[in-house]
């Protein structure tokens, strides 16, 4: 037990750390991550309900367990004991498989999440991370892509109109925002030079020293600061990717009932619910890893507490950051109205994607220029050429053609003869008998006039 107390500095795992893990340690971590995800989901559902309730000035769940914190657990236990209704139009096999796909991919995505550095676990040195491979981020993105199958198959297999529309909308939304999300993390790979999650965390440990007004200042290592545009795009895309408010269009209750899971009941519904919350936790944890320094303590803490990053303490920082991000998700849900679908898609395709691409090119140019590969004159010439190109594109950009605004008379003239009858513009509607009576009662004098 003393080993991690004395280890004052953080020990970053390398890829070899994961190759040397003994099988039973891996098994412990495997079950640990699984149990952690289930507990975190139960917690997050309750957390969301409580926060939203506070924001709406009402108590929220407060009956089951201490201060209502067991509400989601009891809800979850109740669900398997509810009747399962399978509509007779459903495609039985696909209907059965869809929630399994959703839940499985949601669980798998967490396998490469780094919770901490190297610790002493039952006498063995191992990292607080289930596993890490050179392409960890790809594993994570693959899982989030595969979860689209669960959604679209669920919508299709229900054999009902609302789920089909909800499933299609949801899949279109998820793949559109996946592109923006994928492009936003290119900048992280460029800066970190790796795709392994633990190495990305290690790369954010400290920033480069920069000269600022004669003082040497250490730039913050977090990519949220260094690569701010990427961070913003990632956060927006993450909300779209997880179908959360204000982008919760697949579940637009007023239009689509419940979206793709309208026809699901009992534990199949619970699995979709579970998958949605795990995905929310996953994108938050992923954001922490990529942009917020991962499991390392925030900068001011490490200056007066040397051991903040050692042993099991990183768990505190990691889950603290994840909780703050989850709070952001809930805050969005409590404050923002739902977006319209066309606005939402336009925002994804016409704003997020081009901005990501331009930012990647800008960052690449900046890095190449700073590495000294090109001379000063070339740099200025290139900047000039790019500026001229950007201006040319902006000038020649197709602007949406606005139809000429016609007056009502002109518009009426343009109608083909025999079209739907239109009341005359100067139509005077006589007051209804009831209104006349009411006026007469209130003011008997005017009746005689």
């Amino acid at each position, binding site marked *: 037990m003393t080993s991690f107390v004395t280890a004052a500095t953080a020990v970053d795992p390398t890829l070899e750390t994961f190759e040397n893990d003994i099988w039973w340690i891996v098994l412990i971590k495997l079950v640990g991550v699984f149990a952690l995800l289930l507990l975190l989901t139960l917690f997050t559902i309750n957390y969301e309900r409580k926060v939203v309730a506070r924001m709406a000035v009402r108590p929220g769940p407060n009956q089951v367990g201490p201060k209502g914190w067991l509400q989601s657990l009891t809800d979850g236990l109740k669900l398997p004991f509810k009747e399962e209704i399978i509509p007779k139009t459903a495609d039985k096999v696909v209907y059965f498989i869809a929630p399994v796909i959703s839940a499985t991919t949601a669980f798998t995505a967490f396998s490469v999440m780094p919770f901490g550095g190297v610790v002493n676990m039952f006498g063995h040195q191992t990292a607080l991370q289930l596993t890490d491979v050179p392409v960890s981020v790809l594993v994570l993105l693959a899982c989030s892509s595969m979860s689209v199958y669960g959604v679209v198959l669920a919508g299709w297999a229900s054999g009902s109109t609302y789920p089909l529309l909800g499933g299609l909308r949801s899949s279109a939304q998820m793949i559109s925002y996946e592109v923006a999300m994928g492009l936003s993390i290119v900048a992280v790979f460029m800066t970190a030079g790796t795709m392994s999650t633990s190495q990305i965390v290690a790369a954010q440990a400290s920033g480069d020293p920069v000269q600022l007004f004669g003082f040497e200042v250490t730039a913050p290592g977090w990519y949220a600061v260094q690569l701010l545009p990427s961070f913003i795009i990632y956060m927006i895309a993450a909300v779209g990717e997880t179908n959360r408010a204000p982008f919760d269009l697949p579940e637009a209750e007023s239009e689509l009932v419940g979206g793709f899971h309208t026809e699901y009941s009992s534990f199949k519904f619970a699995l979709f619910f579970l998958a949605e919350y795990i995905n929310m936790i996953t994108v938050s944890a992923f954001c922490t890893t990529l942009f917020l320094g991962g499991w390392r303590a925030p900068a001011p803490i490490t200056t007066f507490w040397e051991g903040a990053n050692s042993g099991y303490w990183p768990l505190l920082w990691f889950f603290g950051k994840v909780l703050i991000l989850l709070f952001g998700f809930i805050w969005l849900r409590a404050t923002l109205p739902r977006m319209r679908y*066309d606005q939402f898609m336009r925002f994804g395709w016409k704003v997020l994607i081009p901005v990501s691409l331009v930012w990647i090119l800008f960052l690449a140019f900046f890095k190449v220029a700073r*590495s000294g590969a090109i001379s000063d004159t070339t740099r200025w010439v290139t900047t000039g050429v790019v500026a001229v190109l950007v201006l040319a594109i902006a000038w020649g950009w197709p602007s949406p053609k606005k139809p000429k605004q016609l007056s009502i008379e002109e518009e009426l003239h343009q109608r083909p003869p025999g079209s739907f009858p239109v009341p005359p513009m100067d139509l005077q509607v006589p007051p209804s008998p009831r209104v006349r009576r009411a006026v007469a009662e209130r003011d008997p004098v005017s009746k005689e006039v």
Partner: protein
Amino acid sequence: MTINPYVPIVGLLILGALFALFSVSVAPIVGPKRFNRAKLDAYECGIEPAPTPIGGGRFPVKFYLTAMLFIIFDIETIFLYPWAVSFDMLGLFGFVEMVLFILTVFIAYAYVWRRGGLNWD
């Protein structure tokens, strides 16, 4: 005995799949069953549901277009990732090559934009 670092990923996949399969199989057994023909109809806000054509019928072609655009940009992303990881080694050459590639895709993107492929009506 050590194991390959890719194995735990599959392990969590199997664990998650077992949990999901177990719960979807057990729920119909432990849950109650009360037959009612109306319950088995597709949901339609209380009115008699219109019969749905086989395969769900027709839906807007926009969804196909979005899927195709997604493939184009996903391929672009796939090309960007290895380039980004080895960016420091590629230097100026890699930068110029990637500018050419992104510009090529950008032409297609501008065309789609111009033709209204990104409008959702």
